[in-house]
């Protein structure tokens, strides 16, 4: 048995979906890196909002509007506290990580010129590649890539070599979605700052496993999605240092983000509202706060420790299967295992596992450059959360063995 301070069986009772069956089998949900499941406490927060105080925020004089505004702003404060952000108005609500990245990438259009360089890591999700390529097309800046080694670790010597006074912006994920690698973002941020470059860290895959201290990191931008950390889809946060958020132009025009509007000129609202045009995902923001409460209550240290045990156990068990290769063998990893079995297409394994009630992700994981690097069409990815059990890992291993027997 794995050693953990967490009472996993009690925790599992918080997640109604874990009781359901898929294809006649009890669900084994191992696609947590795509989206995490939602505890009853968060579902209750969503229901409570619509039952009791659904109203538009920041403008109504009536009580419901005030209650909704208070709850939404309280959620912002919870996010601020969780990520140790200096000022509440440095927390921008977004629709998710992709939105946060696009907001910054679009804003940087006016700061870059031909000859400038921006840098991305070799293990990014497409959402942290494409917006920057679009930025390069708009500005004439050049995109440089920090390479990685076969273990799926960034080659930091190359990073330091690539950095120069033309580098204006570096963006990298905190954790790779396809490989689980935890990147050395402290070193990345410090070195970038030494040449005067700003840094955006995509925290989407890290947020459920690592409690990032954004002031200590001294990062310029950090962005996450609530649905990867027990919250609902369609909401996330972008942290930006105040000085950057003041400099960046608004991303979208609309209500909420203005101070005064005439047909001659509009002045923009103060932070954070300058970047929050239109009616936001109010319920989602509140539920995001509830999700942070939930995870904080369990404790991020305990979560990280238990997930690491699951990772070690699953890695060891899967490697007993002949022909199985794991992609992403970095020393520092979250609980993600990407693998293939020699001679079998990942899609086939995923299909058989689904028949056994086991949910994994197969394919290129929106990270085609990584698949090209390993010269594979994709992988099977099992990603574990704190509500997964050792027995579920065993079911995965048995399922993979069964699939292998059928398919080879």
């Amino acid at each position, binding site marked *: 048995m794995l050693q953990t301070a967490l009472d996993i069986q009690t925790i599992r009772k918080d997640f109604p979906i874990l009781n359901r069956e898929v*294809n006649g089998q009890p669900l084994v949900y191992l696609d947590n890196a795509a989206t995490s499941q939602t505890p009853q406490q968060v579902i209750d927060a969503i229901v409570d909002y619509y039952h009791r105080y659904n109203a538009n925020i920041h403008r109504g004089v009536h009580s419901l509007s005030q209650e909704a505004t208070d709850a939404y702003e309280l959620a912002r404060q919870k996010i601020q506290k969780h990520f140790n952000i200096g000022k509440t108005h440095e927390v921008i609500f977004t629709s998710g990580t992709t939105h946060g990245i696009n907001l910054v990438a679009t804003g940087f259009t006016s700061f870059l010129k031909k000859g400038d360089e921006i840098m991305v890591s070799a293990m990014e999700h497409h959402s942290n590649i494409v917006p920057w390529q679009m930025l390069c097309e708009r500005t004439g800046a050049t995109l440089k890539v920090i390479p990685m080694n076969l273990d799926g670790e960034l080659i930091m010597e190359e990073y330091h070599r690539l950095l120069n006074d033309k580098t204006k912006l570096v963006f990298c994920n905190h954790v790779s979605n396809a490989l689980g690698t935890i990147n050395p973002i402290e070193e990345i941020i410090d070195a970038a700052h030494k040449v005067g470059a700003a840094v955006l860290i995509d925290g989407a895959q890290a947020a459920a496993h690592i409690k990032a201290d954004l002031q200590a990191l001294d990062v310029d931008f950090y962005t996450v999605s609530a649905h990867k950390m027990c919250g609902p889809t369609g909401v996330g946060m972008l942290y930006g240092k105040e000085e950057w958020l003041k400099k960046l132009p608004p991303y979208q025009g609309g209500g909420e983000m203005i101070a005064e509007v005439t047909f001659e000129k509009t002045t923009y609202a103060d932070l954070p509202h300058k970047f929050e045009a239109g009616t936001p995902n109010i319920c989602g923001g509140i539920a995001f706060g509830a999700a942070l409460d939930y995870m904080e209550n369990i404790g991020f240290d305990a979560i990280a420790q238990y997930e690491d045990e699951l990772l070690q156990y699953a890695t060891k068990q899967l490697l007993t299967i002949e022909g199985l290769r794991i992609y992403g063998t970095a020393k520092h990893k979250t609980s993600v295992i990407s693998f293939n079995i020699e001679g079998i*297409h*990942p*899609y*086939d394994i995923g*299909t058989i596992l689904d*028949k056994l009630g086991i949910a994994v992700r*197969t394919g290129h994981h929106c990270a085609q450059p990584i698949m090209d690097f390993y010269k594979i*069409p994709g992988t099977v990815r099992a990603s574990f959360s704190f509500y997964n059990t050792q027995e579920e890992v065993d079911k995965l291993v048995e399922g993979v063995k069964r699939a292998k027997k*059928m398919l080879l």
Partner: protein
Amino acid sequence: MSIQEIQEEIVDEFSMFDDWMQRYEYMIELGKSLPLIDGQYKTEDNLIKGCQSKVWVHAELDGDKLVFTADSDAIITKGIIAILIRAFSNQKPQDIIDADTAFIDEIGLKEHLSPTRANGLVSMIKQLKLYAVAYQTQLN
């Protein structure tokens, strides 16, 4: 045999299986045993890009009948292709155009025909029918 008769035959074969395991094992066997496509036709032009598995389809006329060959890099997909080829290949283009694919549902493989399933099969059936339309025009 007509497309309808072949489809009924396939449904009969699959009705002998008790559970999904046997159905999938049979499909995997079909996928493994069929030499599907000549290497020269595995070109970018003949590739139907599903999200995850690659599917190639080639068509040519043999008299007034259309002959399909196809392949995939995923074996389950290949098995389903083998079933589709058996039902639709060596048939008149107009019959292919008119044929429906409900038998896939009847043999318990409905999930593979969902348009949101990332296996390229829906695109593949569409492609078979497009070939049929093109060759029907040629025959006319």
